C-alpha cells in the first residue's frame, strides 16, 4: 500500500482517446493525480506522454474521454481553461516573455493596479516585493533583482520563475514537461528543489523527464506509458530500481520475468 492512496483526488482523466488522422496517439488512458503528490510520467519517444499532457493542459482537444477536477467534469478547450482550473504547464521557455522582467512576467495578465482603475497603472512596488519573496521561496539564493529581463536568466532560473508563478497563483497542479533538459548538474538540482518546494506547499506535480534518475530523485509515484496507453501507474520509486522501470518503459518486463 502506498501512503498517497488515502489522499484526496485532484485530477482524474478517464478513457482518453486521441487520434491524429489514422495515428492513434492515445488509447483508453486513465490517470489520477492526488493532492500534494508528485507523479513521474515516463515513456519512450512516441509513447504518448506529450499528447496526454497537451490534452490535460488544454493545448489539444482529446478525441474522446472525460477530465474531472476535484470530482467535477470540466471541458479543456484552451490553455486558459486549464489555468482557470488550476492546471499550469511549464514548458522549457515557452511560458515566459523573454523581453519582460521577472516581476512583469509573474503578473502578466493579472497585473495589480494602483490608483484609478481606468488609468491601468501597474503597482510595480507590490509586483517587485512579491517577486523577491517568491524567488526566495522557490530557493533562488542568488540576489537577482526582479527587474531583470527573463532573457538574461539561465535555463534553471527561468524554470524557477515559471514554478514561482504557478505557486503564487495557486495552481493546484503544476505540469513540468522536460524541465531538466539541457540543464547542468547544479541547475537540475535547483529545479528538483523547486519541485519539492512546490509539493511541500501543497501543490501536485506531474513531472516528465527523459532522465529516469532525475525522476527517481523527486517523485512519489511513477506512471509509465507505452504505445499510447498507460502500462503501469503505481510504481513506487522507493521500492523499485531504475532497471526495473527501464524494462517497463521498453516493454521487456516479460522477458525478465
Amino acid at each position, binding site marked *: 500500500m502506498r501512503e498517497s492512496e488515502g489522499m484526496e483526488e485532484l485530477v482524474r482523466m478517464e478513457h482518453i482517446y486521441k487520434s491524429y488522422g489514422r495515428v492513434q496517439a492515445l488509447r483508453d488512458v486513465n490517470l489520477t493525480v492526488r493532492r500534494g503528490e508528485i507523479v513521474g510520467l515516463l515513456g519512450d519517444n512516441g509513447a504518448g506522454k506529450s499528447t496526454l499532457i497537451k490534452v490535460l493542459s488544454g493545448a489539444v482537444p482529446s478525441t474522446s474521454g472525460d477530465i474531472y477536477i476535484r470530482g467535477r467534469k470540466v471541458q479543456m478547450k484552451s490553455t486558459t481553461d486549464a489555468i482557470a482550473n488550476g492546471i499550469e504547464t511549464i514548458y522549457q521557455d*515557452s511560458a515566459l*516573455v523573454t*523581453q*519582460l522582467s521577472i516581476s512583469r512576467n509573474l503578473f*502578466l495578465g493579472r497585473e495589480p493596479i494602483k490608483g484609478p482603475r481606468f488609468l*491601468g497603472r501597474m503597482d*510595480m512596488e507590490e509586483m517587485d516585493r512579491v517577486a523577491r519573496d517568491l524567488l526566495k521561496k522557490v530557493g533562488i539564493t542568488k*540576489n537577482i533583482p526582479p527587474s531583470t529581463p527573463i*532573457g538574461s536568466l539561465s535555463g534553471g532560473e527561468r524554470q524557477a520563475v515559471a514554478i514561482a508563478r504557478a505557486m503564487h497563483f495557486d495552481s493546484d497542479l503544476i505540469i513540468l514537461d522536460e524541465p531538466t533538459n539541457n540543464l547542468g548538474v547544479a541547475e537540475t538540482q535547483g529545479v528538483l528543489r523547486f519541485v519539492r518546494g512546490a509539493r511541500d506547499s501543497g501543490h501536485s506535480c506531474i513531472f516528465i523527464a527523459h532522465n529516469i534518475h532525475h525522476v527517481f530523485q523527486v517523485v512519489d509515484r511513477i506512471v509509465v506509458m507505452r504505445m499510447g496507453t498507460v502500462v503501469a501507474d503505481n510504481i513506487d520509486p522507493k521500492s523499485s530500481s531504475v532497471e526495473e522501470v527501464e524494462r517497463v518503459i521498453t516493454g521487456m518486463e516479460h522477458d525478465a520475468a
Partner: protein
Amino acid sequence: MENRTVLQQMISRPEFGPFVLLIAEILVFWAINPAFLSPGNISNTLAFTVELGLIALAMTLLMTSGEFDLSVGSVFGFAPVVMWTLFNSGTTSLEVGFLAALLIAAGIGLFNGVFVTRLKIPSFLVTLGMLLVVRGSALFITSGFPQRTWNAGDQWLAEVLVGDFMVGPFRLYMSLFWFILAAVLLHYLLTRTKAGNWIQAAGGNPNAAMARGVNVVRTKLGLFMLSSMLAAFAGVISSIRTSAANPNSGTGYELEVIAMVVIGGTALAGGRGTIIGTVLGIFILRVMRNGIVLIGVPGLAYNIFIGAIILGMMALHSWLERRHNAGV
C-alpha cells in the same frame, strides 16, 4: 549586476546610441552652418517633424506588439481629403468632417487588425493591400486634384489643431503641443500600465501571453486603430498648415516612420519598444534631412545618409541586444 555604475547603465540603454547620434548631428550641422540653429530654421523643422512624429509614436506601440502598418502614409493623405471634400461640398461642418475622417481611419485600422489577427495574414501583406486601397480611394474621390483648404482660417478647429503662436523668436504650431501630449501619454502607457505590459508580451511571446489570459487580439486591434487614427490626425494637421489636401501626400511616409522607430531602438520583431527612442529617431532623420541641405550637400544625396544611419544604428542595436542577452 546591481553594482554597475550609473554611466554603464546609461550606455547599455537602447536610447543611448540614438541620443549620441542626434547630439553629434546637431553639433556638426551647427559648426558648418550656424544658421542651422536659427529660430527660423528650428521653427520650420519642428512644424513638419511633429506631424510625421505623431505617426511614429503610434507605430512604436504597434511594432512593439509585433505588427506594423504600411498604410499610414496613404491614410495621412486620405483623411484630409475626406474631411475637406465633405466640408467644401457643404455636406457637413468642418468639425463633423474631422470626426468622419477620424472614424473612417479607425475603421481602416480595425479592418487591418481583423485581417491580421483573425485571418492570420501577416501585417506586411494586409497593410500593403490597404495602402493601395486607401491611396486609390483618395485619388478617385478627388480625380487626382488637391482639395481647397484655405477657408479654414477662421475655423476654431483649425486654430486648435495647428494655430501658430510666437514664443520669443520661435514660431510654434499647436501641433507641437499635440505631439508632446501624445509622446507623454504613450510613453506612460507603454512603460507603466497593464496595457503596456500586454503590448510587450503580445510582441514578445504571443502564445505565452494568451495562456496567461492576455487578450492579444484586442490589444493588436486597438493598436491598429490607434495607428490609423494618429496618421489621419497628422494628415489633417498637415493639410491645414500647408493649405492643401493633396491625395498624393504621405507617399513613402510609412517607410520613413518605420525607420524612425527602429533607429530609436524598438525591435522590428516586436517585444521591446521605446517611445523615448522613437522621439530621438524622429529628430535624427528630420534633422538630417534639414541639415544636409543647409550645409550644401545636394538634396538628392539625402537617402545615402539616411540609409547609412539606419544600417549603423541597426548594427549598434544588434550588438547591444547580444550583450544584453549575454547578461552583461
